[in-house]
């Protein structure tokens, strides 16, 4: 195979474009897609302070790399989830990248900051491990962005992530979530703007970019992810893509062009959570309810208090309420 641009030997094949690229040209092709996403959705500008949520994986480090290369003011944020050696290696990868690029990395440890880690939450809470992990990340990222006075949070969600999420939400007709599955969620009422600049690029492309750029990312998968619903949707999309290249892009990018306007967004009224002050639609935000359940504590305003034995079911009943913090996105 030959590179579409220079006719040199190709190393990356992008079947949905019926194209292939060499190791010199592909990083530029990749970067151009990120620039296009930033431009089209007016995600951020040169004067904005961008907080990049970095996990140590290929997507988030590739995103950070591109944003730094393009000259944006991009600070990394690593959230320690407490998942044993996997978290240790992930933390090391983000630290090493930041050192090499001379970039600023902020680190928040979930256990230090909020009193629990993800394995504990998976055991003690009523939600699945991945659900409580996602909820914790969204909350902690937003809190860190507010605390650091950042203009926008950028995450490494790629085309495969977005197509799989859209598939899951469509299968369930979660119309509220479908309406909000945009690569740009504007900031409002205590929520910092969130963007997904890699949404036009597949996992294969982000992995190839990270490899060609010499980024030492964590290849291993999270040990708690087995059986995750999102993975099953990805496998289903990949099975279709194998015989019909371009289906994922048509599904998600076509949704952005023609589908999203058909789904009306409710104008949700937000008010401060009585425990933490973050925006929510009920008395307590979903994060505080989940945290209270995991810690087996009672929710009070302000804060979370020790719960007497006779009231241990309070947190559990509260956790069954709606999850308003998820107006800022959800993976199925």
């Amino acid at each position, binding site marked *: 195979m030959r590179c579409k641009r220079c006719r040199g030997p190709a*190393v990356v094949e992008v079947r949905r474009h019926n194209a292939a690229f060499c190791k010199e040209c592909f990083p530029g092709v990749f970067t151009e897609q990120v620039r296009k996403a930033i431009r089209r959705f007016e995600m951020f500008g040169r004067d904005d302070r961008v907080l990049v949520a970095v996990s140590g994986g290929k997507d988030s480090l590739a995103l950070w790399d591109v944003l730094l290369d393009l000259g944006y003011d991009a600070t990394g944020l690593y959230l320690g989830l407490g998942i044993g050696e996997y978290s240790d290696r992930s933390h090391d990868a983000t630290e090493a990248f930041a050192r090499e690029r001379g970039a600023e990395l902020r680190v928040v440890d979930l256990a230090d900051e909020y009193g629990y880690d993800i394995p504990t939450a998976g055991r003690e809470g009523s939600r699945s491990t991945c659900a409580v992990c996602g909820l914790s990340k969204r909350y902690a990222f937003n809190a860190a962005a507010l605390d650091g006075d950042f203009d926008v949070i950028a995450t490494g969600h790629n085309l495969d992530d977005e197509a799989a999420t859209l598939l899951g939400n469509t299968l369930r007709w979660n119309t509220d979530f479908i309406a909000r599955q945009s690569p740009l969620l504007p900031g409002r009422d205590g929520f910092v703007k969130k963007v997904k600049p890699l949404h036009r690029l597949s996992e294969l492309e982000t992995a190839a970019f990270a490899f060609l750029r010499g980024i030492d990312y964590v290849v291993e998968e999270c040990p708690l992810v087995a059986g995750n619903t999102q993975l099953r949707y990805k496998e289903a999309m990949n099975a279709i893509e194998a015989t019909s290249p371009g289906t994922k892009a048509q599904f998600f990018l076509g949704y952005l062009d023609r589908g999203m306007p058909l789904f009306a967004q409710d104008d949700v009224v937000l008010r401060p959570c009585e425990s933490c002050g973050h925006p929510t639609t009920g008395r307590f935000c979903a994060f505080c309810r989940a945290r209270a359940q995991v810690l087996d504590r009672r929710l009070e305003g302000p804060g979370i208090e020790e719960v007497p034995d006779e009231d241990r079911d309070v947190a559990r009943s509260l956790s069954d309420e709606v999850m308003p913090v998820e107006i800022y996105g959800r993976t199925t």
Partner: protein
Amino acid sequence: MKVKLRNPDRQVDLPGGRPIREVLDELGIDGDTVLVIRDGELVTRHEQVGDDDELEVRPVISGGSR
């Protein structure tokens, strides 16, 4: 030919003298879900591999909630 597979890490020996896509087919791996690395370089599924080659087949799918 030695093929290193990841997640979990393991190694299998397979005959070379064929394109990589045939090796992936034999392993039941969708070529759009992996990087294939030979001698530290990415290669496409159309490349021919020999009996003395060593390949790393690295999955690109990440999951979970983010």
